[in-house]
């Protein structure tokens, strides 16, 4: 029961994250301008009058029936996920003897998902402020990582004894995770600042290796969407800086994860995970390049988010394997 709930919650989290990215990318984040309900109603259907009035007042604005449904669908499945995680946390405490697992991971998970709910609310009420929206993305990725780890704990794995030659492994695995997390944060920053077209060309940016850029304003954290902190409009140089940083990050991630993955191929117990990491890495870089080449089609951008989530899950499982092996806690197949 606990196992199945954890697996189901993990799959659902992946779906909520990708649907959330889709809502963000299709500019439907303000499809319902209040929270938690839509114009105080349970569904957009009940709020049809308010929605059509808002649409008439501001044609082409943030509110349409389709956008309201997208936003509310994301909220419904996110709430379902919240309920699931509450049940998981309760079970983890009640059955901690039978399970033989510390209930604290599930408790942290519950805290993370609550915080994530708050970020979701702020996303709407603070009018898509980039820092909040990026935080909402990273919160989602955190919940996904915690659940992936919890899922990995529920599976029985073959024994993995790394041997003395693999002393580099724990450090490299952690570093890989950190590098990926940094790149996801940069990617979120690109998306929430609408900087995906900051460099419209490949492989150079605006025909130069290092185009004119404004890092100070691009990476100023506390400001409204599209504006500098003093309310002036954000310049192209600032958007270029954001995009360029994510591109430079991609090279670092590709080289480092590529090296790390190919090292894993030589360890029997981690080969499959290494292959998964490398395959997902290739797909993800391919999608990233295609986004620029094809001028940001929505489906590619959503797939780029899904790819990031899958890469993260792969790295979390690799870290789980590496750290449960060195501490020899989860040894022996069931």
């Amino acid at each position: 029961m606990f196992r199945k709930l954890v697996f189901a919650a993990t799959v659902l989290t992946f779906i909520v994250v990708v649907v959330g990215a889709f809502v963000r990318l299709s500019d439907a984040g303000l499809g319902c301008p209040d929270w938690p309900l839509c114009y105080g109603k349970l569904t957009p259907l009940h709020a049809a009058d308010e929605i059509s009035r808002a649409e008439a007042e501001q044609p082409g604005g943030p509110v349409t029936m389709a956008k309201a449904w997208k936003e509310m669908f994301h909220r419904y499945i996110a709430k379902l996920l919240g309920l699931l995680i509450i049940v998981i946390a309760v079970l983890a405490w009640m059955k901690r003897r039978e399970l033989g697992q510390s209930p604290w991971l599930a408790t942290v998970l519950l805290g993370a998902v609550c915080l994530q709910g708050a970020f979701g609310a702020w996303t709407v009420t603070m009018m898509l402020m980039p820092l909040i929206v990026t935080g909402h993305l990273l919160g989602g990725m955190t919940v996904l990582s915690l659940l992936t780890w919890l899922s990995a704990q529920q599976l029985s794995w073959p024994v993995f004894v790394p041997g003395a030659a693999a002393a580099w492994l724990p450090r490299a695995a952690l570093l890989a995770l950190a590098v990926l997390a940094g790149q996801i944060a940069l990617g979120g920053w690109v998306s929430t600042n609408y900087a995906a077209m900051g460099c419209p060309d490949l492989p150079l940016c605006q025909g130069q290796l290092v185009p004119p850029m404004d890092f100070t304003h691009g990476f100023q954290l506390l400001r409204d969407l599209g504006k500098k902190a003093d309310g002036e409009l954000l310049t192209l140089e600032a958007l270029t800086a954001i995009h360029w940083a994510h591109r430079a990050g991609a090279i670092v991630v590709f080289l480092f994860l590529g090296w790390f993955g190919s090292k894993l191929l030589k360890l029997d117990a981690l080969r499959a995970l290494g292959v998964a990491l490398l395959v997902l890495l290739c797909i993800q870089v391919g999608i990233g390049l295609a986004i620029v080449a094809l001028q940001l089609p929505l489906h590619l951008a959503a797939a780029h988010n899904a790819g990031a989530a899958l890469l993260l899950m792969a790295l979390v499982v690799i870290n789980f394997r590496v750290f449960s092996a060195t501490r020899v806690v989860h040894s022996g197949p069931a």
Partner: protein
Amino acid sequence: MNQSLPLGQHRPGLLNRVRQFYALTKPRVVSLIVFCAVIGMLLAVPAGVALPLVPLFAATVGIALVAGAAAAINCLVEQKIDAVMARTRGRPLPLGEVNSIETLVFASIVGGIGLWLLNNWVNPLTMWLTLATFVGYAVIYTVILKPATPQNIVIGGASGAMPPVLGWSAMTDSVTPDALLLFLIIFAWTPPHFWALALYRTEEYAKAGLPMLPVTHGEKFTRLQVLLYTIIMVASTLLPFVYRMSGWIYLVSAVLLGAVFMYYAVRIFVSYSDKLARTTFRYSILYLSLLFAALLVDHYLA
């Protein structure tokens, strides 16, 4: 990296290299996949309407390339398991004739060309469905499900059941209930097909450490599952007729072919022998080919 293996002593010539890479794509499995996809394409276009030849050709090649890339990734993950099992010992990776990085680069190029073909010459929907099938097979099935749960081939069967859907979407740029019926048939066919094989190879799977159903839940339980899934499968093969997608020619063929499958499944359940399981496994492949052929004949004659 595996230079010291005894079988790799002759320096591979160019032709030999090509042959090794070709073997990595599991041509026989890929041809069955392409066969199912092409039938999906033909069924999607009403009889009498001219077939759009360019997308048809591009989709066939594109799906074949992505399927080949998926097979190569599968070889890469399972080289250790392949080295243990008699059936797969002769594959290029266990022999050390190609190395891991070469395989990955090869798969990226082949798969990338396939996806590009599908995106530019067919439609983006087919490209995405094919990519999802690739990830489903090469990552989710091969890496996660197969070593983790006896339900591996049931869930992973979803990837195997996708080809007719891919063919369908290549022609119509949509996924309709007709296409999903074809999906359902292959999805329900996979467990009896695979477990018939697993029943007479239980020891090999146990040796390779894979939790196939007969290894984890015993032979008797597996035999019951073969029978139950065969009933579900036969029932789902009737749906194309019920849905008015196919006519009497198909119905009669499906009933006759299904009756033979049921006969084997019942015998597997009541009086099992390895020989019988082997026959059933062989018949299951013939069954699927003939069933899809019947769909096709019905489509053009009825």
